[in-house]
């Protein structure tokens, strides 16, 4: 058949060509592919970059959260030092309620809530458990795990 013959001829011609010459037809297709390939690789790179930028933002948020927690820890430790100076009589539940947050806490954690909770132990040795707590909300407005520190005060005559 004529069709078969032409196919045969084409095949022969193609197979007779040296390998280098066969490649000459390919650049016609690749001319368009270069830009397409590049665009695709750029898109993949863009997706990767978006992921990296999100990671960067997350790292910055974590750093801020760590700093806020550090400030809160320093605040409760400093308040515990103040309370260690206060005498037994002045640590009664009705007397120990004023806690002025420091300027550092105010600037790092605006709106933080500082609370003191005193629990009396009536049996001997007489003691008071003083729990200091700083609670605050994160940048998304959600409450974080508060920082707390507990100090025990013992009556002078009942000291262990």
């Amino acid at each position, binding site marked *: 058949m004529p069709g078969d013959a032409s196919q045969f001829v084409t095949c022969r011609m193609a197979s007779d060509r040296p390998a280098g010459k066969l490649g000459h037809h390919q650049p016609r297709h690749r001319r368009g592919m270069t830009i397409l390939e590049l665009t695709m690789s*750029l898109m993949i790179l863009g997706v990767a970059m978006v992921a990296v930028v999100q990671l960067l933002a997350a790292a*910055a948020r974590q750093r801020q959260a760590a700093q806020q927690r550090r400030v809160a820890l320093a605040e409760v430790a400093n308040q515990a030092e*103040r309370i*260690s*100076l206060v005498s037994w009589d002045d640590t009664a539940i009705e007397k120990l309620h004023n806690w002025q947050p420091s300027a550092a806490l105010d600037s790092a954690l605006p709106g933080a809530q500082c609370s003191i909770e005193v629990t009396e132990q009536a049996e001997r040795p007489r003691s008071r458990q003083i729990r200091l707590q700083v609670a605050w909300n994160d940048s998304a407005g959600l409450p974080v795990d508060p920082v707390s520190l*507990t100090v*025990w005060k013992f009556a002078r005559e009942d*000291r262990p």
Partner: protein
Amino acid sequence: MNRRRGKSLIEVLVMMSLFAAALAASTTTLAALFRIERLIRRDIEQAAVLDRLSQRLRADAHAAVSCSAAGRCELTLADGREIRYAFASPVVTREVHGGGKLVHRDGFYLPLGATVRFETEPEASGTLIRLSVSPAEMPGAYSPPIQSATILSAINPNTDSIQRGPAR
């Protein structure tokens, strides 16, 4: 045959400009990544040093019977030994003097650009030592901000307070 040779100038230009844009974006991202890594590392180092310093200072202050803090901090213990804290950028030194000679010395290295002040703060029922860490004023010099910190230590508290629970 001539058209098939190599790439056209336009193609090369487009390719190069796209490549340059990709390179610029990745360089900027990498620079930001390195900066954040450096900041976080410095924060952690500073926090560790301040933690060690505050433990030492508080233990010394609790055991001290008297204190003077003018520029540097001098604590006198009940047994006559003296503990001196001084700051010479970037290190806070702690020296223990006993019997007229230096017995021990510690160093607490803070990040460059931090300044430390010692002050006494009289309270109604005693005295506190206030150690403040703040960024030094260096006009024109670029450096990422140092995180400020304050450590209060009670001088010889009347030991009604015995122990502390774990901080959470």
